[in-house]
């Protein structure tokens, strides 16, 4: 081992630098992904030219999950302006994004977040179990504390060569389905439950039939990526698979970024109502004295402007007036929610825990 270090010390620095530069250039061109990053939105006034009489500037940290990047980018600017007009205080929001579960763990492990905006209630429950968020968090805000919703749709290749119309088409022997691993991805759990719910509805709530259907579906999955963005890459960039089970907003992003001439979105007959929840992290907000602004930050998501920004970023708004404005964008799909599975805690336990139904689907298959 010492040899290795010796080499590093004696290494020719310019070569080392050249290698690093080359690698960096490569990395730059290939664009990194999936890592959690933090961006800071400047406060609305663009600079801290606060007079002595104005209230002190305040900083909020919002720990969120991957697909909300664009949404909160836009929302933070709008909120900063609203708060400035209302109170005269400059508010700066720091964003952190990553996989929903990983973000929840970061908060548990001490990442100081004033608010969390995650993919599923289960992740916020886990933070609440550690005493950082009050137990009754989901009743604090309207609509189960989820200001915007989404659902699971199908993304297929242009012209829909395999003729995929609905869930039933996904278990045809010649169809390859792309979805992430439900054990590591929040979005994949929604997709899995959407498929399960469809099968229940079709077979008069026969659990055995539902398990058989979902088992067949996953037999058609050639690759299980660890996250939603990874699966999108597999389907879009690598050209693997015939259909991608995707968040509605991710599907639209793919469509806009990669061209409408390559893919199309198929809305299944039924799907699941995904309710990404938001909560104030009570312990942190109280410690930092940010409760008031944190609460306002989440409440403003329900306002007309907040709802409009959500809709513009392909999240389904709760507010009827905004929903009417965007009704061409969000076609009617019959939706069932998580209560069909007895809530998140129960769904997680039954399906996604070790040895749960998802594991049984794969094991003992050799």
């Amino acid at each position, binding site marked *: *081992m010492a*040899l*290795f270090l*010796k*080499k*590093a010390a*004696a290494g020719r620095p310019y*070569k*080392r630098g*050249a*290698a*690093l530069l*080359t*690698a*960096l250039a*490569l*990395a730059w061109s*290939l*664009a*990194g*992904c*999936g*890592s959690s990053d933090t961006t800071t939105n400047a406060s609305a006034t663009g600079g801290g030219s606060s007079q002595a009489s104005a209230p002190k500037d305040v900083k909020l940290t919002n720990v969120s999950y991957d697909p909300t990047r664009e949404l909160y980018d836009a929302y933070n600017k709008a909120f900063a302006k609203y708060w400035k007009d209302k109170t005269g205080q400059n508010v700066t929001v720091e964003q952190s994004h990553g*996989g929903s*579960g*990983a973000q*929840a*763990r970061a908060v*548990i492990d001490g990442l100081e977040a004033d608010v969390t905006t995650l993919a599923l209630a289960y992740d916020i429950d*886990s933070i609440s179990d550690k005493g950082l968020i009050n137990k009754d968090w989901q009743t604090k805000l309207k609509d189960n504390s989820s200001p915007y919703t989404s659902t699971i749709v199908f993304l297929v290749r242009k012209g829909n060569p395999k003729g995929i119309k609905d869930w039933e088409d996904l278990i045809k022997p010649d169809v390859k389905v792309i979805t992430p*691993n439900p*054990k*590591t991805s929040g979005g994949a759990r929604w997709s899995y439950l959407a498929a399960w719910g469809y099968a229940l509805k079709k077979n008069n709530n026969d659990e055995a039939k539902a398990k058989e259907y979902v088992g067949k579906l996953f037999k058609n999955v*050639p*690759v*299980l*990526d*660890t996250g939603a963005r*990874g699966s999108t*890459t*597999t389907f879009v*960039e*690598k*050209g*693997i698979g015939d259909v991608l089970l995707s968040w509605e907003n991710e599907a639209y992003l793919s469509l806009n970024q990669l061209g409408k001439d390559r893919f199309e979105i198929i809305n299944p007959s039924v799907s699941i109502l995904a309710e990404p929840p938001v909560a104030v992290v009570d312990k942190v907000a109280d410690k930092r004295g940010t409760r008031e602004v944190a609460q306002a930050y989440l409440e403003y998501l329900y306002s007309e402007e907040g709802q409009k920004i959500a809709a513009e970023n392909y999240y389904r708004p709760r507010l009827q007036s905004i929903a009417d404005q965007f009704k061409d964008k969000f076609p009617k799909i019959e939706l069932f929610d998580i209560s069909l599975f007895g809530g998140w805690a129960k769904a*997680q336990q039954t399906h*996604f*825990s*070790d040895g749960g139904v998802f*594991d049984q689907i*794969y*094991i*003992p*298959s*050799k």
Partner: protein
Amino acid sequence: MTRVRKKRSVLPGFGLSMGFTLLYLSLIVLVPLSAAFLKTSALSWDQFWKIILNPRVIASYKLSFYTSFAAALINAVFGLLIAWVLVRYRFPGRRIIDGMIDIPFALPTAVAGIALTTIYAEKGWMGGLLKELGIKVAFTPLGIMVALTFIGLPFVVRTLQPVIEEMEKDVEEAAASLGAYRWTTFRRVILPELLPPLLTGFALAFARGIGEYGSVVFISGNMPMKTEIAPLLIMTKLEQFDYTGATAIAVVMLLISFLLLLAINFIQWKSSRGLLPR
């Protein structure tokens, strides 16, 4: 590992430097690792065995160790070749190639993973060619091996280079003048000299491969029982907020890796003292 001898060294300050070494190692390496052990100790033995002897976990251990071992082996052979060529020959573009060796070190692993998958997927240009031959790379254990080979190459090359640089050519010339064929010269003169650093490089590449996550999850396909690596199972446990389960798997990997590295170091120690049969 040298034993501390009771002999006055020419250089003063042994006590201080040794103390500092131990402190530094403890802070940087041992304390975090002991935290993993502590977390695991919350489990009863029964639970612990149940977690780590689960067929899926066993399958992932096997996969991780086999693919890392195979990748390190490939790197040992070709890394030796590359290091030899880079040191012993002068040709245009040598510096650039030498610089490129470090790229796997510097590249974010996720970038490496995505790039490799793109090339080796059935639609990619390497994958397409290999598909003609009936070989699937992406989303198979073979793909994992490819990723780990990519990651591990610099370790072997960088450990061998300085040693080859310091090797005297006249020994080889002497061997040749005494009538040794090239192969004999290589086997009896060059290889014994290079075996210790080669083993070090192998061990480093192997250890790196076992713990590698970022570059592998893209190309492995993560199919349960088939292409799930052990670090991925740690991540799935974490995703269920099962910290103790995750650390249990981690601790087992740690122990196996440590034992393997110890064994390799032991062989290296023997070979550097010329105790191995030739």
